[in-house]
């Protein structure tokens, strides 16, 4: 006997409204359908009625956790339209804040992930140590989460030597804690039992489903926008791409742990080699962008983020399109959640697998298919989207 269990829109598994319709047999999940439409706000349309400057603040609020990546991507996009190059010091400052927000996002995710697995104490410790990073972000940018640090033509504030010394101290503290937590994760059997062998995604599947970011790297594939298509001075700051080849939830935790350490190294390097000079170009609050189109890519904490815009020479973009990493990753969740053969998925694995991709639904809900003939708007379900992706894959090959 199978019956349907609705997870969401209000469910402690995930604070954001996300609807998972699970078809279960006892404790085993046999089918799943994902609906992410609860959070669709119409941001892309909203961007078209704002000036470029106002749009920056809306783009930043597509997602609160990866706001730095979104605002950076928006700024790169508009700077590309305008044909402006930001000063080198601004690039380094952007890297520092971007990596800080990556650390904050990863710590937040790891902590919350353990919370969903029922390991409350580790959740508390991770979030306690994350507060140090939040203090640093607040010190540099003036706000804890939504930083508003990147502006078109550079960054908003400079870093003082006083801030720099505090930042270095925090880096040392966080690095020490990370090394300790790494040991905890490797030695606690109740935790390993929930992580190892759960939600396996083979590298070939990961590519064909179009996953990005740490989720893809946990399947052992070396892909990182910072390396493949360096932006904002990332070609000058050395770093390693962390990959792991067990392809399960354990690998996803380990990859993010490794990335936190890498980001700490990048911040130290950027602080050591901070170029002097100006940190912001003078750009008036109201301007018209020349006609054309531009595309920018940024490695957000959750993976590759793409912004695309068309300008028709006006004060505001003619069309703006955002493709967020969670949308790419959600497809793989639907595949990983289905029990097939000896690969069994229990209801208890839903937090582990869904959490494993670091879902950020507020980035995601922007797929609406408009039926021109029937004049009806409907939101695509994930199964349809998955089918669409597969068909396209077939067509390509």
């Amino acid at each position, binding site marked *: 006997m199978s019956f349907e269990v609705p997870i969401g829109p209000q469910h402690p598994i995930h604070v954001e*409204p996300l609807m998972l319709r699970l078809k279960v047999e006892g404790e085993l999940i046999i089918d799943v359908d994902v609906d992410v439409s*609860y*959070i669709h706000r119409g941001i892309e349309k909203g961007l078209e009625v704002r000036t470029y400057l106002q749009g920056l603040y809306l783009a930043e609020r597509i997602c609160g956790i990866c706001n730095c990546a979104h605002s950076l991507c928006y700024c790169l996009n508009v700077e590309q339209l305008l044909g402006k190059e930001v000063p080198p010091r601004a690039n380094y400052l952007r890297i520092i804040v971007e990596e800080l927000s990556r650390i904050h996002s990863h710590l937040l995710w790891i902590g919350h992930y353990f919370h969903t697995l029922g390991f409350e104490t580790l959740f508390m410790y991770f979030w306690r140590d994350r507060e140090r990073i939040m203090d640093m972000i607040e010190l540099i940018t003036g706000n804890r989460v939504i930083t508003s640090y990147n502006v078109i033509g550079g960054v908003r504030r400079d870093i003082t030597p006083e801030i720099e010394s505090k930042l270095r101290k925090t880096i040392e503290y966080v690095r020490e804690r990370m090394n300790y937590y790494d040991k905890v994760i490797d030695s606690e059997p109740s935790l390993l039992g929930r992580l190892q062998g759960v939600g396996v995604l083979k590298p070939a599947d990961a590519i064909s489903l179009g996953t990005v970011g740490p989720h893809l790297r946990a399947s052992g594939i070396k892909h990182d926008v910072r390396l493949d298509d360096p932006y904002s001075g990332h070609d000058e700051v050395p770093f390693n791409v962390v990959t792991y080849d067990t392809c399960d939830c354990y690998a996803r935790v380990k990859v993010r742990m490794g990335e936190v350490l890498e980001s700490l190294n990048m911040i130290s390097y950027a602080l050591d080699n901070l170029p002097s000079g100006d940190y912001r170009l003078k750009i008036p609050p109201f301007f018209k962008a020349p006609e054309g189109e531009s595309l920018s890519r940024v490695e957000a904490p959750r993976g590759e983020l793409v912004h695309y815009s068309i300008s028709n020479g006006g004060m505001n973009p003619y069309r703006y399109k955002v493709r967020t990493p969670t949308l790419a990753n959600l497809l793989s969740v639907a595949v990983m959640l289905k029990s097939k053969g000896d690969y069994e998925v229990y209801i208890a694995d839903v937090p582990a697998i869904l959490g494993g991709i670091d879902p950020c639904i507020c980035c995601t809900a922007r797929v609406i298919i408009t039926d021109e003939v029937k004049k009806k708007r409907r939101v695509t379900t994930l199964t349809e989207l998955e089918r669409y992706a597969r068909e396209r894959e077939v067509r390509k090959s």
Partner: protein
Amino acid sequence: MGLVARLVRKCRARSPWILLFDTGACNACDIEVAACLTPRYDVERFGTLLRGSPRHADILVVTGPVTRQSRDRIIRIYEQMPEPKYVVAAGTCATSGGVYWGCYNTYPGLDSVIPVHAYVSGCPVKPEAVLMALSILLEKIEKVEV
């Protein structure tokens, strides 16, 4: 007012269980409200527990502008909560829609959908502000002013 009624009011003010619902926020307010649970802020000092089921909760903390899709859900969750219940609109988007003006899928503020007892402005709200809002609301609950 009788002794029992005063005791009950005091107990209500000392044990507010909260339910967090996101009606379309950008996640920033969510993580800031969630950060209240953690060691630095520790909202359990007030006796607060974060509950998963609306049936157990006393205070509904809503973040984000109300989207069309989640409007019915928030009303349903509000109706599932047992009396007496209170609603806190956390963040600028929940109080007024904030930066999402001109987006076709959002409502102007939470109070156009369900009654709201306390507004916290901030983008995102600082966890300290959430604590302050809770303590103000609890004081008012004790004196039966909301």
